[in-house]
């Protein structure tokens, strides 16, 4: 497999198969990270900001990756899927034949090189990069849909605009995946703080795409969803002012 192919692989939306991480591994790692950061922190605010910083870096990376993925045309995705299947098939054929007879191996090798020529650079196949979202509602929709699907495999439970406050938006997750094993009822502040990593992801994502804001997590349990978390996004005044200047006439 040529190097470029490997690099491209992660850029393709659901390249070969949808990649999944074990929930147990993820949550164990997450709880270890929280424990470590918690021990290092002097106060709960300090802890929140540390966790926020970790998430921030992730948010920046997610912004790049998902915008790139959104730019890949649908035709390429389907082709890549076929290629992924045939690649894995031909791979098995080669390993089987290499021990028995040589001629079929060479024919397989030639078809393999065809694949490589056809598909050596993903960048060439993208006609136009996706423009970054400029409107508040667009970029929040992107987080609500694409980012959440990428991170958790489903869209977030809800996206709400605060009544009477232009700068406030809420993203709601009924069953937060990373913090689902942490009890909210026992210590509300601790539970909310544990969600600050995701706050960091949202903040990093928004800030790097030109929407400076503050994000905080709030525990608002309901009977069916005892772990329900609300991410409160407060955009800075300049963002709202810019939006009004740019779009209010349209």
């Amino acid at each position, binding site marked *: 497999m040529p190097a470029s192919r490997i690099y491209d692989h992660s850029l393709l939306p659901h390249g070969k198969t949808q990649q999944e991480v074990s929930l147990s591994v993820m949550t*164990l790692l*997450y709880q*270890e990270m929280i424990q470590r950061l*918690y021990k290092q922190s002097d106060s709960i605010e300090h802890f929140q900001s540390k966790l926020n910083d970790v998430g921030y870096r992730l948010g920046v990376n997610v912004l790049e990756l998902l915008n790139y993925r959104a730019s890949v045309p649908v035709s390429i995705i389907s082709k890549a899927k076929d290629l992924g299947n045939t690649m894995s098939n031909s791979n098995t054929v080669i390993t089987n034949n290499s021990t028995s007879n040589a001629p079929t191996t060479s024919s397989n090798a030639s078809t393999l090189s065809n694949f490589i020529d056809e598909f050596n650079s993903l960048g060439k196949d993208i006609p136009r990069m996706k423009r970054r979202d400029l409107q508040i509602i667009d970029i929040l929709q992107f987080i609500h849909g694409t980012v959440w699907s990428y991170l958790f495999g489903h869209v977030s439970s809800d996206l709400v605009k605060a009544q009477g406050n232009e700068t406030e938006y809420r993203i709601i997750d009924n069953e937060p995946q990373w913090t*689902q094993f942490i*009890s909210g*009822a026992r210590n509300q502040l*601790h539970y909310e703080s544990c969600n600050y990593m995701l706050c960091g992801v949202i903040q990093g994502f928004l800030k790097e795409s030109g929407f400076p804001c503050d994000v905080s997590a709030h525990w608002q349990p309901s009977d069916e969803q*005892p772990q329900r978390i609300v991410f409160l996004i407060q955009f800075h005044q300049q963002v709202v002012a810019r939006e009004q200047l740019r779009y209010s006439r349209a």
Partner: protein
Amino acid sequence: MGIEAILIINKSGGLIYHRSFTSPQVDPSNPTITSTTKHTLNSNDLLILASTLHSVFAISSQITPKALQLSQSNINYTIPYHPYVGVANPQTTPKNNMPTKYGSFKGDDYFKEPFHNWNKSGLKQLSTDQFTMYIYQTMTGLKFVAISSSVLPSGTGSGENNNNAGANTVNINGSQYNMGSQIADNLLRKVYCVYSDYVMKDPFYSLEMPIKSDLFDDRVKSLIDHLL
């Protein structure tokens, strides 16, 4: 099989979790006062219970009969899987009443394969005149204890005792007796599954310390509720 209580004992013999499932009885003549005839064990008694069970574990391996030591007989330590112990059965429960996915619980059951019993030489079951206690031990030495209100069927017809009475009469119940133990192992292994989710993945839980998680409480409760 009614479960009276669930206990968890850590690897050094300390009681880290205790929950009783006998609902407080309401006195019909005076409903404002809940009956206290079933006075609960105080914490000291429970700690003694936990440490006694723990120390008996060490002893019981020492008293293995010589015949077993000599023959090294192949005892099968695999416990068969019994479907839907402690979870809703999809065949009998309406779709909308099925529990949602949570944590490691993805399908209709926590696990679906027979499993290995780590508890080879330690105490596994204790039967008395009033209750039966089942113990499931994990590889790391953690012990899950269930106290069940079911008792052994008592031997009847003692007047008919003759030389072969004992050998023939009570054989029939043998499989059922083992069944209870297997179901208890299945249940306690599920409690272990819940423990590994809601206790081990809680960043504010310190190892070997008492478990105080309401999420864990809820899940254990739901396991016991579905058992009845």
